[in-house]
Structures are given as C-alpha cells and as structure tokens.
C-alpha cells in the first residue's frame, strides 16, 4: 500500500504573472476559540454573493480553545471545490506561523498580524503586514471581545487586496448575525477601518483578484449536515435520538433548529420528539423502538458511536425494524482524529452486527443528495424494514457547499408494507411470510386494533409466524429470505451516477465527498488528452450497472479516503471475475483528497 501523496508541479507555478481572477485558494490560520469563524464565513459568503463559485473547508482541532485552526477558501470561476494548496495565507496564529509560511508556493501571498513579531524570510512571497492591535484600538468594542473582533481586520485587508466590495461583506455579516444591526455595525466598523488603512498603507503587488460573476445566483450555500437534517424533516422524520459526537453533532443541531420551526402544529404541539440519549447504545435502541412502533426515526453519529451500535444494528437487521443511521465519518480507528475527515467506516458498517448481518448504505456526495437521501433513506428503511445507514463525512457534513435549491420530494412518503386493522382482516397474520417474493413480509404496528394483528418481535430464531423456533429449517428459510430481501434492496437503492467518455480505457469509481477531487482530476486529464470514465457509487449493495462500467474499462481505479481500500474490496467480492481490473487508490491522513493526488494515481495505472 503506497501512502504517499504525489506532488505534482503546482498549477500556478509556471503561469505568467498576470492578474489571476477568481481562481485561487486562501487559508486563514488562527487559533481555536478566537471566533475567527465569523470572519471566515463572512468572507466565504461575500464571495458567494458576488456570484463566484466558492467553497470553504474548516480544518479545526479537537479542543475548544487555543489550538491551530485553518480555514481554507477555494475560489474557482470554473466551479472546482476540491481541496487545493493555498496561495494566500492569513497568518494570525503565532503557533503555526512559520510552518504556514513555509507551505506557501513561490509567488504566494502572506497577510500577517504584525503584532506576532514575525520577520519575513522567504523572498519569493508577497507580504502584507497588519498592525492588528492598532487597528482595533479605536473600536467601540472593549474587553475580551476585542480578540474576537480582531479577526475582522483580515476581512478588511482582503476587501482591499482582493477587491471585494464592502457592501458584499456587510450583507454577509448581516446574514450571519441574523440581521442584528448592532452586531453588524460593530464588526463592519473594524472591517471598514482596516480597509481604509489598507488603501493608504498597503500597495497591492500580488496577482489575485475577485471579480463579480453570475455563477451562483441560483445556488444555495449550506453544510451537508444541514441539508441532511432538512431532508429528514421533509421526509417526515418524527423521532430523533442521539448522543453528541463530532462531526455528527451539527446534524442534530440543525434538526433541533428546524424542527421547532417546521413541525409544531396548530395546537402548539410538536409533531416530533428529539431525545439526547445517555450514549449511542441507547440512541439506536430508542430509534429502533420508535421505528418498530411506526415512527420515522433517525440517529446521527460517527465511528465510535457506530461501534457501540453494533449489537442493535444486528437486531434491527434480524428483527426487521426500519431505522436511519447517519454516520458522519471521521478518522479512525478508535477515537482517532475526531475533527478530521474520512471514509473509513464502509466495511465495518456494511457488515455491522455479528453473524451474517449486512446493511444498506447510502453515500451522499453533495448537499442536494444529503437532502434527497435525507428523505429517501426513510422510504427505503420502511419499505425494506431494515436499518439504512447514510455515510457522509466531516468534510461533506460540516463544511459549506454550493448547491442547487432543493427539489421538493416527489410522491408520497413510502411507508412500506404496513397492514391496518382492516387489512389484517380475519385471516391469521403471518409476519414473516414472503408473500410477494421480494423477501419482505407484511408488518403491523402496535396499536393495531385487529386482535389477529399482534405479534412478538424478537432477536431470536423464529418461524414465519414470529414464534420462537430453534428448528434448523426455520432458521435456514428465514435467513435465506433475508438474503432475498437484500437482493431486493439492491434494486431499490439509488443506482450509480455514470459519466463515460467513449475512448476511456481507465475508469474511476468513487463515492461521497471525494467526487469533487475526481471531477477536477478528470477535467485536467481530459485537457491533456487522457480520457477517463467515472462511476459514482451511491449505495450498497451495488447493482448491475457497476458491472457494466467495470467491464467497459480495462482498469478501474477505486478512489477512497481510507487506508485499506474498503469499497475496492467489497467490489472485488461482488465481481470476482472482474477483480483484477480493480485498482485501489486509497489514502487517509484526515485531509480531503486533492485533484492532484487523484490525477497522479490515474496516471500510475498500468494498462
């Protein structure tokens, strides 16, 4: 397994030094807990409001105050959003200043806080020094909040350097402060005074600039977790149980933000219930209880929580109870890096639960899909009567992404085979009979008034009638039916998204948030005449089109953000006859993959 990232020549390195418009990355280096996120997000949203494609990634530490934090903003008139090394550094954190500067490419820009006592050494960079203390000295804000508002100085400076209209910044601040004008004013005061100071004291020498476009007019900017939470709400989720864990907490925060707004009825009563459980064993237990009793129920968690949910996941699979589990993946094994992104739970979740448990997984890769899977996951869970896992990741979940406004779900909620009292009728009700040949039996909900409608759900061996059974045939038949049901799932889950180039000999398979690096890498490759196909897996179990795609390419690179090539391995067992066409490109260090890396891995494929 080769874990090294290839370093390719930096794309800007050889460019002529003309103005570079709407095509750069910048990174803001601060310490955690200084409140720099307001400044970062204001910056991000002003660029967005100017119609320019933009994306921000927050690289933050697993503590509350004082450790290094980097906020990366990628501005790309072409619309690329994958991670890319930054040309512009806002150096506000003394702890990482030297390292941060060292990472800038030749020709890079360093805007730094003069008070940190930094002495520039590299002579291939442009420097802009800001006397931060002095700049905020006149601010009306006093005391501890000075530190906080100090972050507005770099916003002001960048407004001058990148030519961001102040009005765009003001609009963004107004957005983030929810139109509380007093807050907007006190922040804008610092932005404006720094802007003015910059105009007088800095002379622009670097080539990077912002120019308004109209590429984001119809778009929204949102985190994946917010999108997923909204999807769940528009999917009628009515029960949520969870235990806090980064990076899933903001998923539930969004639920708790929007549910009271969207789901309080005329009588002022809630049409939902959210419970903070005592741990993840309890959270998934509550969700299964609610799903069994007929509510649309979800929990959100991350790796350690998934581990703790194993036993209940197996019960959900075997007792056939609908449930939706969002796993916002972070770096593991174990506690690992709680604030870094990963796609490392694929194998574990696919087989989560002892015995022959196997689970349905969805892989959203955009905020639109987070929203969509937010409701389809509940449809699938209820139709299939099984836990459905949605595997997002920290990068997708916690960062702000552009997307099209969400389409209102089509068609009614699919509640699956639930029999009413009338439907049970007067024939004995047989819970686990495969009436339709799809492996899915009919269920009734507690409260069904038909005296023939009740049954006892259990995690132990049972016959079709849900009666306890240790008979070998009963076990084998039931377990065969469950396998059949998994085949049904294969047909029902969202199929892959395929983008082919007819002459491509190399295909790429990826899923989730890495698709952006793949998209960009493919464009680059295609510019240099190298065609590739791309199949984006959207769910497990995979279905037929994946086979065709693999067959159509001599080699298929499976790109993923983990160490062991987890999807790659699953695909090998799915398609043993094609196993040798599959090449694993797996890498995990906590940072989102870059297009450069993908490109290098593609070029390395031996045909």
């Amino acid at each position, binding site marked *: 397994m080769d874990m090294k990232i290839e370093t390719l020549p930096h794309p800007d390195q050889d460019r002529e030094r003309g103005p570079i418009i709407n095509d750069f990355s910048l990174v803001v280096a601060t310490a955690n807990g200084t409140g720099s996120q307001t400044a970062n997000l204001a910056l991000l949203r002003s660029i967005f409001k100017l119609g320019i494609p933009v994306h921000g990634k927050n690289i933050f530490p697993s503590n509350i105050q004082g450790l290094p934090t980097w906020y990366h903003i990628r501005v790309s008139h072409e619309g690329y959003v994958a991670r890319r090394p930054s040309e512009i550094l806002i150096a506000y954190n003394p702890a990482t200043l030297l390292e941060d500067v060292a990472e800038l490419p030749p020709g890079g820009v360093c805007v730094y806080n003069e008070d940190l006592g930094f002495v520039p050494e590299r002579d291939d960079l442009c420097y802009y020094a800001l006397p931060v203390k002095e700049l905020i000295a006149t601010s009306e804000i006093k005391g501890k909040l000075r530190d906080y508002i100090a972050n507005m100085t770099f916003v002001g400076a960048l407004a001058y350097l990148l030519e961001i209209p102040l009005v765009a910044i003001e609009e963004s601040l107004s957005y983030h402060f929810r139109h509380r004008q007093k807050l907007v004013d006190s922040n804008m005061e610092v932005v404006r005074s720094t802007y003015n100071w910059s105009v007088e004291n800095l002379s622009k020498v670097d080539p990077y600039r912002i120019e308004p476009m109209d590429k984001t007019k119809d*778009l*929204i*900017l*949102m985190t994946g977790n917010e999108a997923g939470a*909204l999807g769940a709400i*528009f999917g*009628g989720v*009515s*029960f949520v*149980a969870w235990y806090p864990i980064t990076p899933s907490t903001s998923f539930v925060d969004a639920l708790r933000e*929007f549910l009271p707004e*969207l*789901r309080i009825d005329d009588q*002022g*009563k*809630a*049409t*939902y*219930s*959210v*419970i903070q*459980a*005592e741990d993840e*064993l*309890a*959270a998934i*237990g*509550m969700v*299964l*209880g*609610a*799903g069994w*009793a*007929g*509510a649309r*129920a979800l929990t959100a968690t991350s790796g350690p929580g998934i581990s703790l949910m194993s*036993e*209940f996941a197996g*019960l959900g699979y075997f*007792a056939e109870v609908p449930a939706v589990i969002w796993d916002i993946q972070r770096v593991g094994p174990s506690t690992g890096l709680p604030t870094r992104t990963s796609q490392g739970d694929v194998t574990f979740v696919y087989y989560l639960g002892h015995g022959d448990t196997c689970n349905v997984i969805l892989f959203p890769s955009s905020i639109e899909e987070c929203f969509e899977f937010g409701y389809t996951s509940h449809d699938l869970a209820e139709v299939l009567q099984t836990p459905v896992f949605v595997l997002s990741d920290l990068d997708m979940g916690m960062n702000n992404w552009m997307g099209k*406004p969400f389409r*209102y*779900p089509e068609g009614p*909620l699919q509640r699956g085979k639930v029999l009413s009292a009338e439907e049970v009728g007067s024939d004995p009700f047989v819970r686990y009979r495969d009436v339709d040949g799809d492996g899915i039996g009919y269920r009734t*909900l*507690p*409260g*069904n*008034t038909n*005296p023939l*409608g*009740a*049954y*006892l*759900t*259990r*995690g*132990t061996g049972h016959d079709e009638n849900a*009666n*306890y059974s240790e008979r070998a045939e009963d076990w084998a038949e039931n377990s065969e039916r469950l396998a059949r049901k998994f085949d049904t799932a294969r047909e029902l889950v969202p199929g892959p998204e395929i983008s082919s180039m007819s002459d491509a000999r190399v295909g790429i398979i990826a899923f989730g948030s890495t698709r952006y690096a793949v998209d960009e890498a493919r464009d680059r490759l295609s510019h240099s005449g190298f065609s590739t196909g791309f199949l984006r897996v959207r769910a497990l179990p995979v279905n037929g089109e994946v086979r065709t795609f693999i067959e159509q390419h001599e080699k298929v690179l499976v790109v993923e953000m983990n160490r062991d090539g987890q999807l790659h391995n699953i695909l090998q067992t799915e398609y043993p006859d094609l196993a040798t066409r599959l090449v694993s490109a797996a890498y995990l260090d906590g940072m989102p993959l870059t297009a450069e890396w993908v490109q290098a891995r593609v070029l390395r494929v031996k045909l």
Partner: protein
Amino acid sequence: MKRATGRVNRIGLSRSEYGGDPSTLCKGCGHNSIASQIIQVAFELSLKPHEIIKLSGIGCSSKSPAYFLGMSHGFNSLHGRMPALGTGALMANHSLRAIGVSGDGDTGSIGIGQFKHLVRRNVQMVYLIENNGVYGLTKGQFSATADEGQGLKYAGHNPFPEIDLCIEAIVAGCGFVARSFAGDAKQVRSLLKAALSHRGTAVLDIISPCVAFNNDDSSTKSYGYGRTNQYPLQEIGYVPVAEEIVVDDYEPGELRVIELHDGSYIRLRKLEADYDAGDRIRAVERLQRAQESREFVTGLLYFDSSRPSLAETNNLGDAPLASLPEARLRPTHEDLEGIMRRFR
C-alpha cells in the same frame, strides 16, 4: 389469539384471552406467577390488548412476554437494552401502555445505565424486575442484586454488596417505586394496577425465586443432590420440578419468613399502614435500614406523580407520532422555499 372461554370482562374478553404461549420456564419459577398476575390484572382492568405493548430484554424473565397478553404487540429485545427500546416505542406512540419485564441481571448488571436514564426521563411504563439474584438463563452466576456474602453452588461466594434497585430508582428520580414477592399474588396485583395508571415510570421490583440456581451448598436443607455433586456445569443439568412458592396475605407491618426451594430463607416485611410513601428521603432511609437487617420491605415505597412524563416534557399532542398523516409530517413547498431563500 385465544378464544373466549368462561367469564368475560367489561370489554367481553375472558381471562384466557389475555394469556400467551405456554411457558418454557421451569416449573415453579417465580416468573411464571408474575405472568399469571399480569394476565389476571389485565383481565380485571378490562385492558384493551391493542393498547398494551410488552417489552423485555434477555433472560428467563425477559422471555415471559411471550407467555402473557398474546393479543398485544411485544418486543423481546437485547440484554439490558429494553429501556431504550421502550423509550423510542413510547415516544412513537404515547397512547400505548407499556409493560416492561426485565431481570436483575438485565437491569442491575448490563442494564443499570439504561435503567437509571429511563427513570430520569420518566418514560411512562411499568418496569417490572423479576428479581432472583442470579442469572437464570446462563445457569446460575451472581447478578448485581445478589446478597453480599451469599453462596451459590456454581458461582461460589458473593463478595460484593448488593445493588438495591428500588434505591437506585428513587435516587434517579422515579415517582413510583414498589417491592413485592412473586408468591404474594394479591400484593403483586394491587401494585400492578396502581403502576399501570402512574404518570411516568413505575418500577416494581418483585422478588422471584429461581428454582434451578438459587441453590446453596451451605444451606443445610439443600436437596441439591442433582447438582451439588456434579461436574462440570455445562454437561450435567438436572432441574427438579418444583412448586411455586406462595405467601398468603399478611398484615401491614408484619414480617414473613419464606422458605425458598433450596431451604434458605428470605424475610419479607410489609410496609406499615401509616407508612408515608410521599417522603423520598425517608423511603431511601427505610430501604437502607432494611438492607442492614436483611429484610425486604414490600409495598409501595415511594410515590410522587408531580413530574411530567417524557411525552409531556416533549410537548407531544394527543395523536401518536406514529399515526400522523403525511400532511402533518412533511412541511409544505412554501416551507422549503422559505428555507432555501435563507441559504442563498
């Protein structure tokens, strides 16, 4: 479904229609008596079977939901995890009444965390602990409620202090805490009835002797020939068929000494007629004193119905979440557009 036979209740059901599958527990097991009392109470109260759910964990005790109320839905779940499952089920449908059955291992060992948090949240359910001080189903290890110093044939000597689940419930904020004895049918029934109408979690800790494994070599009256001389456990198991132990009605304040199957004794003392079940601090004190004198006080130990149930805390309306129609579950097109505007 059982067909009506004999006398019927207010809603036209006979006692046998509240029955379930035949028990596969040992003859004479206290758990069977408790199941009978549940059946009897449901019959007497004319409970509608479809308004009840039965929940349990794993253990001999947790098997019993199969043996009562066959016309009610139920869920025999995971070891120690019934509280979470019940919480979810009851939030999905808070119009249901839940009877949860657990064991002392299920609640006191693996499940103590979920138990305490269920109680804290005041989930409206009757939480029945069929307490025998051992793990019945896995053949006779000590549970956390086994008396300190107690001896068991296979498990040896218990060096650890017992957990008193009534104290645990009270200090976790439970508003209905009672203790009884499986053989005291009358008391079990009256406590069950009260528990079924409590707003919030009602904990009933019922001493329920295990015929098979509450067997101590050191007990002089032990008949344990079948087991005491054998080796090893997993190979040879003889469980004598026993009679249920029954205690007749005894007076408030009275002490009853009950001989168990293995010849050991337990001491039950019924709470005095003037006992004040409203004083939480006194209730804990009383239980601690009883622990010191190796007695079990029986009766309603603590009662306070002032705390809202979880459904109330969560501001739920009358209609169960599980039966809300799509129109009330899915926000409108306008709602979505409003949100979308906000993220522009």
